[in-house]
């Protein structure tokens, strides 16, 4: 098959992605750098960016996005690590069963999944009804940062576990035997062999979960409070409620740059830094 034929065969996909995705996104980003109307229409400007960083509300929104994403990432990591360790020792049948369970939240519609959390965590939800019936004061687990972290962790925990599993299950048993033969306790083996050797999986999982947490919309929109926003919900508001496309594009680009920088640094470490020497 000639080169031309292979181009022709992949043309529909390129057209689809190009026309329906890259073009509109490119136009949006483009529009954030230029005056659209008024006397200076068409000239380059950073006005939306300057306005964005001038407003302390926006800074705190960026900070809150980073903070909640980081907490979600950390909680997922801490929860997923023991699971991945445990899966290492399991047979292939059990392993695939648990893998299926881990990705099951992803197979559920985001609305159903999120509204289920409302039933469970809400002011009149299962947990608070139980607390009230025990004459304990209710806790607010929803419509605040807690709700967002719980909801995000629930979805993204599986990604973290899968990412960890791939590296942890590749660790050679003989390495652990060699370490314990030389006098390493279980804790030392975990600290000095397993964790350092899982670093690519840990970092990949963190980049993945952080990126998705920072850019996901539905979960924070439904489980977060109305008082303070995240970047993703802000982009939605700016676009849909305020029709401020240029501002929305600016926030979206900043979010993209943040997430892309993190994954770029990770790739650099893996392919050029110490990661290459050890893991590639």
């Amino acid at each position, binding site marked *: 098959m000639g080169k031309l034929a292979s181009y022709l065969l992949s043309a529909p996909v390129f057209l689809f992605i190009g026309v329906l995705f890259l073009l509109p996104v490119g136009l949006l980003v483009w529009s954030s750098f230029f005056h659209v109307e008024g006397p200076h229409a068409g000239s380059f400007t950073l006005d939306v960016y300057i306005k964005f960083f001038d407003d302390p509300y926006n800074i705190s929104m960026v900070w809150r996005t980073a903070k909640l994403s980081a907490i979600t990432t950390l909680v997922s990591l801490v929860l997923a690590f023991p699971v991945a360790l445990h899966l290492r020792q399991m047979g292939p049948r059990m392993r695939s069963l648990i893998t299926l369970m881990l990705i099951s939240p992803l197979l559920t519609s985001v609305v159903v999944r999120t509204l289920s959390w409302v039933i469970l965590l809400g002011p009149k939800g299962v947990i608070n009804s139980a607390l009230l019936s025990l004459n304990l004061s209710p806790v607010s687990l929803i419509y605040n940062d807690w709700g967002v972290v719980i909801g995000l962790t629930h979805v993204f925990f599986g990604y973290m576990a899968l990412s960890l599993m791939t590296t942890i299950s590749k660790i*050679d048993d*003989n*390495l652990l*035997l*060699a*370490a*314990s*033969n*030389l*006098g*390493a306790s279980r804790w*030392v083996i975990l600290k000095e*062999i397993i964790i*350092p*050797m899982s*670093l690519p999986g840990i970092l990949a999982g963190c980049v993945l979960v952080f990126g998705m947490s920072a850019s996901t919309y539905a979960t924070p929109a439904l489980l977060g409070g109305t008082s303070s926003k995240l970047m993703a919900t802000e982009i939605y508001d700016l676009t849909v409620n305020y029709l401020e496309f240029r501002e929305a594009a600016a926030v979206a680009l900043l979010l993209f740059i943040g997430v892309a920088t993190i994954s770029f640094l990770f790739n650099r470490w893996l392919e050029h830094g110490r990661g290459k*020497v*050890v*893991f*590639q």
Partner: protein
Amino acid sequence: MNQVKSDADALDGSAPDSHLIIQGLSKSYDGHKVIDALSLQVQKGEFVSLLGPSGCGKTTTLRTIAGFIELDEGQIHLNNLRIDQMPTHLRGTTMVFQNYALFPHMTVEENIGFGLRMQKISPPLINQSVRDVLELVKLRDFSQRYPKQLSGGQQQRVALARALVVKPQLLLLDEPLSNLDAKLRKELRAEFQRIHQNSGATTLFVTHDLEEAFSISDKVAVMNNGCIEQYGRPQDIYTNPATKFVAEFVGHTNLFEGSVILHDGKACIEWNGQTLTIGNLAQPAEKLTVVLPNHRLRLAINSDGFDSSISAKVIARSYLGSATHYQLLCGDVKMQSTIPSDGSDLIFQPGDMVMACWNSRELLKISA
């Protein structure tokens, strides 16, 4: 088998000198006995090989000694200490793995120092010991490299250094050369020998390679089906194989099996329609297997100068440089002959009829 028994008997009485004493070791998986009442003694400073085909239980034995596998029955004593119930790191044994098992995220220096660091030895002393052992394995300039940056042979020497640096009572080598190419294997084999002589570490070496075991070891234990078939010096095992299995495993192919009869006043066996003189190896009526080493079987036009011969047909010939290897067919039994290249020998072609000749005093008797 007799020899194994007498070794085991000696244990109960009077052999307190042995450095490693394994007694009645058994291990089963799903009702299948992988190690079957194995007993073995190793003296301090000896280099002993466990030699056998894959699945004979040699690696399981090694891992049981290291404490990676729990034994079902038996006892292991090392340096007058019963170690079979101890955790692996208190046993005084260190293991070198077939796949090296170096920590990929640590430098050569960190890998080697790991065991000492676990023993809470002070950093200056660790550095000194690591330097010394790097000198011993000739990797002084590689201390800052990561395992990925080393060749297979270098990695294996790092693994050896890591195991040696803690001065183990017993060094366990699990087929450490089998991942390397033939040339490197020979080099590293000599290297292991030199390092063993320098360090004096009592060593148990697992291999399926006869040449490797014979060339490097003080003693070899030939294993089959979870048992030691024979334990002794390589030359004793070759010249006096205890069982048919050992004879075949060490490369003997010419085995004559039969009952001893008297023929013209000489002890003989009936084999393959021939009456073969066996010298004074056995008494009449005894059932016997004798072995003729390949290099003792000569090919000639007539049997002058030999006291035994049978006619045979050459079916294959391979020239090996230092020798020529012939495959023969005597009746329907295959035999093999290795003739050293000394310039004077006749060359036979496949299809030639020859006299396969030998002297009966060169026959070896199998004990069991």
